[in-house]
């Protein structure tokens, strides 16, 4: 059987009704990983994957429950799974073994998932193409010459390339949604605080969330419910009640108020995505949704804002990689200062160093007010404008990216044009609001384009309902 053709929910049923065993599924996907090794999506297949699958089979036999019982899952290489290497695709942590489980891994295991491996990514989640990994570039699942997007490129290719039914990524500025868009799958960046960050190696703490990456909207809704909830180990995780997202999917969008944001429409002009984007909006109106003109006057400042706040936090978060307690220590360091300087010079890649320097610059005395503080002020202003906006509408639509996946190596020499890849996704991280991407159109060479649905904080249910409606009724062209 070609298990990659089934959705997660279908596989869950097949396991439950014992049409397939976890061992069969797991060995199938491990074989897939081996077969598609040239994609370089998965850094490591865990050696205990099959034995864990067999354990799951025993539980299935005993009619034990678990929403993911026996399901193979791949996690991004920055999510801690006790006893397994977690390298953040960096030389610095090449051999670092996680000492404890992240909350999301705990939740996966509690529901019986079989975590089969870790996916390649941009080093420390910094990048939009998975070309910044110390362990080689990952290729787009649909076009070998193109980037998979990033930073969760490996996780996206794992699902799109049929290496697993579901994967986890992390999204700090678009790192789940952009690769999902480039590979034609579904991914969400939930409301900030919806999922505990405990045990996820931090890049920019105030912006990032873990997000599930799946083939279908319903799969995604199913996963989000499993991953969400307050954790006592993460102050910033929210006490807000976790919805049953699947039952939020009603199959109808009558009366839904869709915000058509002036600034987004302007940004889209002239882009590959413009035509299908405008088409889908009009189609939704025909389907019974109400279109509302809205505005986020400072929308275009979010990118600048992001590239100040994120590096500032990153520079501090990455300080702990100092070669003292764990992580790589330079062999020819002769004193403490040399341990710091040499280990960090050797351990970090170019993009990481660029962001560390950027972050130190914006935080340094004399520049702090001009950069960091100003960015925080803009963030507050944007949040106020958003409150206003969501009084008028329930969701806002935007493309996830302006065009299809770009060619490998094409943006390496120009970091700013690479940063601009995130222009549509970053706003949700700056605002902390939920944001989902689903494939909705085809561009150049029939490669996918993603539609992004954003809603107010904790309104993931509304997003899933609309996304599912589009997935089932809109003809991708």
């Amino acid at each position: 059987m070609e298990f990659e053709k089934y959705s997660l929910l279908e596989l869950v049923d097949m396991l439950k009704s014992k049409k397939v065993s976890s061992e069969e599924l797991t060995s199938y996907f491990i074989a897939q990983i081996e077969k598609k090794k040239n994609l370089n999506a998965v850094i490591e297949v865990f050696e205990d994957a099959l034995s864990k699958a067999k354990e799951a089979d025993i539980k299935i036999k005993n009619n034990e429950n678990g929403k993911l019982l026996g399901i193979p899952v791949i996690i991004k290489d920055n999510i801690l799974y006790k006893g397994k290497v977690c390298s953040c695709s960096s030389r610095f942590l090449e051999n670092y073994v996680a000492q404890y489980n992240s909350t999301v891994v705990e939740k996966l295991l509690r529901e019986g998932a079989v975590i089969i491996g870790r996916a390649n990514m941009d080093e420390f989640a910094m990048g939009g193409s998975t070309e910044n990994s110390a362990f080689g570039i990952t290729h787009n699942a649909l076009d070998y010459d193109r980037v998979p997007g990033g930073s969760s490129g490996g996780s996206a290719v794992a699902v799109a390339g049929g290496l697993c039914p579901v994967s986890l990524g992390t999204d700090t500025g678009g790192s789940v949604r952009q690769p999902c868009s480039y590979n034609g799958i579904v991914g969400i960046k939930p409301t900030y605080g919806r999922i505990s960050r405990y045990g996820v190696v931090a890049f920019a703490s105030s912006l990032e969330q873990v997000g599930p990456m799946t083939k279908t909207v319903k799969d995604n809704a199913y996963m989000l419910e499993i991953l969400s909830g307050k954790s006592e180990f993460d102050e910033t995780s929210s006490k807000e009640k976790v919805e049953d997202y699947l039952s939020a999917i009603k199959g109808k969008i009558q009366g839904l108020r869709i915000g058509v944001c002036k600034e987004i429409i302007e940004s889209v002009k002239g882009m590959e995505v413009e035509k299908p984007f405008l088409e889908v909006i009009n189609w939704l109106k025909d389907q019974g949704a109400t279109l509302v003109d809205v505005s986020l006057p400072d929308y275009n400042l979010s990118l600048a804002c992001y590239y100040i706040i994120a590096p500032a936090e990153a520079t501090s978060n990455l300080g702990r990689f100092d070669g003292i307690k764990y992580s790589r220590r330079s062999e020819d360091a002769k004193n403490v200062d040399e341990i710091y300087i040499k280990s960090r010079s050797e351990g970090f890649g170019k993009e990481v160093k660029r962001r560390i320097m950027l972050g130190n610059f914006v935080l340094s005395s004399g520049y702090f007010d001009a950069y960091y503080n100003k960015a925080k002020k803009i963030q507050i202003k944007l949040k106020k404008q958003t409150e206003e906006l969501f009084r008028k509408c329930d969701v806002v639509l935007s493309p996830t990216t302006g065009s299809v996946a770009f060619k490998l190596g094409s943006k390496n020499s120009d970091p700013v044009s690479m940063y601009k890849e995130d222009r549509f996704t970053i706003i949700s991280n700056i605002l902390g609001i939920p944001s989902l991407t689903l494939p909705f159109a085809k561009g150049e060479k029939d490669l996918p384009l993603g539609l992004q649905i954003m809603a107010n904080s904790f309104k993931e249910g509304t997003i899933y309902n609309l996304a599912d409606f589009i997935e089932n009724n809109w003809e991708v062209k």
Partner: protein
Amino acid sequence: MQEYDIVIGLEVHAELSTKSKVFCSCKNEFGAIPNSNCCPVCIGLPGALPVLNKKAVELVIKAGLTIDSEINDLAVFERKNYFYPDLSKAYQISQLVRPICVGGELKLKNKIVRVNRIHLEEDAGKLIHSSGDAGTLIDYNRGGVPLMELVTEPDISSAEEAVEFLTKLRSLLVFAEVAECKMEQGGMRCDVNISVKPKGSNVLGNRTEMKNLNSFKSVYRAIEFESERQIELLEKGEKVVQETRKWDDDAGISYAMRKKETSQDYRYFPDPDLLAVRIKRDEVENIKRTLPLMPDELKKKYVSEFGLTDYDAEIITKEKFLINFFEETIKLHSNPKNVANWLITEILSKIKDEDQPNIKISPENLAKILNFIAEGKITRTVAKEIFAKVWEKDENIDALVKTMGGGISDDELENLILRIISSNPKAVEDFKASPTPEKQLKWFVGQVMKETRGKANAVKAEEKIKNILSK
């Protein structure tokens, strides 16, 4: 020679008396096996996140209330970024822009020292430089222990005042159960900022900072040394260099550590892992209600309500253990002045030289002794003997009173008096004939005391003798 003013500001760190660390649930404990009280959070493993221990905030609020600080309704934690091996995350979680407490003051004998702020932060680990091949080792047990930092305004002008300030602050913190302030364990540490200027001048001189002084004596000596060094420089026409200096207690000198102008930029910014702390007015009021009366207030109360002398009240209220003992004892003995007397003359003299003050008699037992005196059952002399015995070896007071003869009954006393009277007829006659019978009376009392070796109650004896002889 030109006269100079010395200008001193202090930064005092005290480890808070919480059960667990400030951002994780590891034990806050001194002297444990190295790295045994550690977890992913306090050793800064990837992915670990801090979660605030609210008790630590409460203790800093308490500290603020004892010195009349204003309590901010919103306190924010920030990251202070720098690399050092004892700092596991390469940043210390501290507070810069919005500390928990702002302002406040501490009254010394002759001046008021203004406090700028008190904030909450985490302590760092400890480096252990081994002499052998092991090189430098790190113990992270102390990493993440809650620390309050109190910063004064530069209102202190001598080594004596600095020590007076620290002594008073320590007693407040100990008294309010905010911190134990065990200096020998590094539980209280002090940085001293010091500058000198020509007497009366409004222009402050360049200041130097001496870090981590961990005894009052070092603070005193370091200030004396440093102010003299600065004055000498100025006298020679040289400049004081703004710098951090290290005090070497053994050598009794300070030397330059690093120059301020090349000092680090800590790149503070709000810690995104921690929520801002909202401190509600009623929480502060609740904490206020749990505060015991502070030494100054107690002193006033002891003088006005109990009639203690200023001097006695001052001594007792200096130390928490004395206050506790005093308070316990006066619950069981109705004359506070007596208790104060005994506490100061008998007890304090016995524990003077001890590092760890330990009162080897319980408040119950002292009260018992004082009650026996008051009831006339024993004399002060006997009482002191009994007290000494109890101090040496915790003995039963009732038994002691019996065996040491303190418990002379009224009948025994009367029989003794009758015996003395009958065997001294001459003295009886003298008494009756004397124009000043008081003198003779004293002679009889003297006999009674001699016979009982001081154990009888002289007042009672005199009364009885008078009664019998006047019949």
